[in-house]
């Protein structure tokens, strides 16, 4: 990378934006500042062909039928992309948003439903460690695939962490790129589940200059009311 102020958040937002390129619609749930920034970046680059819904943001809300509309919209097959995190994520694409041992996470929110209905689910968790990427989640909040016989139109397509990007196919993950400073070996050391490695794993591409200007300018401004601490501390921060 050149000498620029690329925060980790800006880097990840740019990576996530590429995961939803080509979508006609994307929604972002609550407490998801980096995905929200990614969605707005993708919107800028799609030149009006992408509809962005950010829960809690009055300016990025194309819906007029109340809290259920986004969920109905997804079940109608109209929502192309959604971001999901996870206190734990395992190698089958199952995620845990509720609890491990006696530790409580905020809750499942829309995940048990959206994971089954939105075609391009982007899994995102900045922390990439064996604590998060586990052999098997303690609690299945949402399933990466199945169960057999169930109606299903959605599922994970990719997993982005603070270290790497994986593709999800046939019920498992394939490492497709490592962020700067990481290698297949360092990724394997920090990942609790098995994964395949793409024939040609490359360094993850960060934001372009234009991406960065957008993220640090209009996107940071747009997100400031919703995520004041995030925008102040991270997106405009001067240390990567």
């Amino acid at each position, binding site marked *: 990378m050149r000498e620029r102020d690329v925060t980790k958040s800006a880097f990840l937002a740019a990576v996530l934006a590429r995961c939803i390129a080509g979508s006609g619609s994307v929604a972002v749930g609550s407490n998801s500042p980096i995905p929200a920034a990614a969605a707005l970046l993708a919107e800028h680059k799609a030149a009006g062909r992408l509809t962005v819904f950010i829960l809690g943001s009055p300016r990025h809300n194309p*819906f007029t039928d109340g809290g259920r509309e986004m969920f109905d919209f997804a079940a109608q097959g109209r929502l192309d992309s959604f971001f999901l995190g996870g206190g734990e994520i395992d190698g089958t694409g199952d995620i845990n948003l509720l609890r491990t041992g006696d530790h409580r996470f905020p809750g499942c929110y829309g995940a048990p439903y959206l994971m089954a*209905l939105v075609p391009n689910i982007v899994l995102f968790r900045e922390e990439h460690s064996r604590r998060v990427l586990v052999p098997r989640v303690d609690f299945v909040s949402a399933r990466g695939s199945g*169960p057999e016989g169930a109606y299903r139109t959605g599922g994970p397509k990719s997993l982005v962490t603070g270290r790497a990007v994986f593709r999800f196919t046939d019920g498992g993950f394939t490492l497709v790129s490592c962020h700067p400073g990481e290698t297949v070996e360092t990724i394997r050391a920090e990942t609790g589940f098995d994964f395949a490695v793409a024939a040609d794993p490359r360094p993850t591409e960060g934001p372009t200059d234009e991406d960065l200007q957008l993220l640090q300018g209009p996107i940071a401004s747009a997100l400031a009311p919703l995520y004041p601490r995030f925008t102040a501390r991270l997106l405009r921060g001067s240390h990567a």
Partner: protein
Amino acid sequence: MRDPGPVSVNALAGSIPDGARLALPADYGGVAMAATFALIRRGARRLRLFGVPTSGLQTDLLIGAGAVETLETAGMALGESGVGPRFRDALRAGGLVVRDSTCPAQHAALQAGEKGIPFLPLRGILGTDLLAGRQDWPVIRNPLAGEADPDPIVLIPAVRPDVALFHAALADAAGNVWIGLRRELATLAHAARRTLVTVEALHPGNLLEDPLMAPGTLPHLYVAQVAVAPGGSWPLAFGESHPADDGALARYSEAAKTDDGFAAILAEWLR
């Protein structure tokens, strides 16, 4: 039946009985905080909270004040600060019954209540531990599926809250309430037995007779009591005119980590 004219915030909160199943909006959805302080002041107990669809500061406060017996919600967090500290503490201490849910199920339960039907089917959720924990959510074979297709589907039972409580922009003398885009509050009020609303201000005309206001109006038919409480969502945001008091929220997140800290900030806020 609606009481005539607006009442005081204390009277409104006082009409919520101990043990009520009380439905409350998400932190971004018009939270009646002033009425919540009044509810805590009067020492409410054994409330059964229902998140529409999620829960936050208001629920953490009620839990900390010992007012909550059960909580059914799709998520429980204080914005960027994560899980509510009093909620977390109550889970550790035991005694709080939590029925974990998912957003579309919370909405569907109220839609079923609104429609007077016993349940609404919902896609997704199958095969999760969330579903395994909900013995009250049966899974049936879709009766419309082809013979060879198992097509299991989850049924979400209807919920008709005893009381709905929220904050809105305007009410008129007839008891109509302008909710604007927050249509989940209309579904909620339709489903609830009694709906209590605090508002920023009274509207001089009849909201239903104004063609521009009517589409965003909850009719008086569903509104039991209205109280005027300007800034009644503080410290939470309400619309663009009332941004969240981020300083107060950050102080709460920190203070409420301990019993003493919570007691101190609650005493300050109840003053």
